[in-house]
């Protein structure tokens, strides 16, 4: 089992969600986060004074999947979240040691 974490542009939220559903992903967790990478921040203006806002709004997806679908899920996210412009975000994959469904007590792949 793997945990796929993806940081994307906020307006791509719905497209990525639909792409994941189409790829057979049945559950996901989404949070509104702020951060920056190579894109850096952006500037806002208040009473003529320009402020550099380093942390720009992003959306983080967290999805636990079986090993055999990792590649296809990454491909789906990449396709849906891409604009080709700087700031499109990142995807990373980490191993998951144990997964428990609280209601039934199921563990492992059957708890996905």
């Amino acid at each position: 089992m793997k945990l796929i974490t993806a940081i994307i542009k906020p307006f791509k939220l719905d497209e990525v969600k639909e792409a994941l559903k189409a790829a057979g992903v049945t559950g996901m967790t989404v949070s509104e986060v702020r951060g920056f990478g190579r894109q850096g921040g952006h500037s806002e203006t208040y009473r003529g004074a320009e402020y550099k806002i380093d942390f720009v709004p992003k959306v983080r997806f967290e999805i636990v999947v079986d090993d055999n679908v990792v590649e296809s899920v990454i491909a789906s996210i990449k396709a849906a979240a891409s604009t080709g412009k700087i700031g499109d975000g990142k995807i990373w994959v980490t191993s998951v040691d144990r997964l428990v469904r609280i209601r039934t007590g199921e563990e492992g792949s059957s708890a996905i």
Partner: protein
Amino acid sequence: MEPASLTWVLVSAALVLFMTPGLAFFYGGMDRGRNVLNMLMMNLYCVLIIPVVWMVLGYSLSQGGSGNWIGNFDWFFLKDIGVLEDNGGQLATIAFLGMFAAITPALISGAVADRMKFSAWAIFVPVWSLLVYVPVFKWVYGGWLGDRGSLDFAGGTAIHVNAGIAALAAVLVLGKRKGWPQEGHPPHSMPLVMIGTGILWFGWFGFNAGSSLAASGQAAQAFMNTFLAAAAAGLVWVITEWLRDGKPTNLGAASGIVSGLVAITPAAGYVSGGAPLAIGGIAGLVCCYAVKLKSKAGYDDALDVVGVHLVGGLVGSLLIGFFANPEFFDGSFGEGLFYGGGAGLLGEQALANLAAMVWSFIITFGIMLVLKKTIGVRVSPQDEADGLDYSQHAESAYH
């Protein structure tokens, strides 16, 4: 103007001014969080530009002279309007009417929300005010429609129907928001919508009861009608959606209140007794269904300016043809069907609204097309995605 009336008109003018920021919150809360400041600014801009337009030319062209179609230049820059004559009554009236001129284009902002270039809006507002608002206002108040006997107490035809049909024309040129209707575009702050609703209702007492332009019994009845119609419409809307959709919602209550306020606007000084309950109730029911038209017909009127202002305005204006009661007010206006007046008044109401709608739709469509071909009316897909707060104003509402 005698002192009591002058006082009431000045207070009413301030009340109507407050409606524009109220409308901004009402719309802004319904917007998404990345577009709320753009919505507030579109509304605020109307109280920046329109007072100037109104003082320089708007008032003179909409009220000067005795023409049927358009005023004249006699009061260009408010020339020759003194405060020694009539206790300053004319100046108070100009200020009062200027507030109406300001909020009318602001109503359209709810339809074009989330995707119109602010630069295009900045030009649209004064041009629309002079080419659409001013002539229609003249027709209704001192021109051919008013002379034929149609009634519009505080701006049902001249303001709400006018802005509502203009909103439809504007969105037909502008196109749909990205993701509409699939994404649903839920309101980002319902508490903001409720604050806006409260301010609108409060200000609307000046809008309607102030339109007597006198501290009179008619003003008292218009005040009471404004109170009752809004309550009845909010009540009926909530009950309708409760039965239809299963839950009573805040947005339903707020939308119902506004639809009732819109509907009673043309009728406020002409009806009495149970009529405001009937007018408000019917408006609440009809508008609750009318806001669903946009999905079926495929026009993206983002915050339901058509469903609430056009439809609510038409409901109220046509119902005058049934409920107008000149005897109650000792007035010289036509009688409604229920008071033995026959269908004559109803016919005039229909004609007045039809005329206003035809002119407003065609000219608004034309203004939007010219803007589209020249500076463009729509933000880029990237700007729309980033949100208009940042892309148009370099600000963000929430940190």
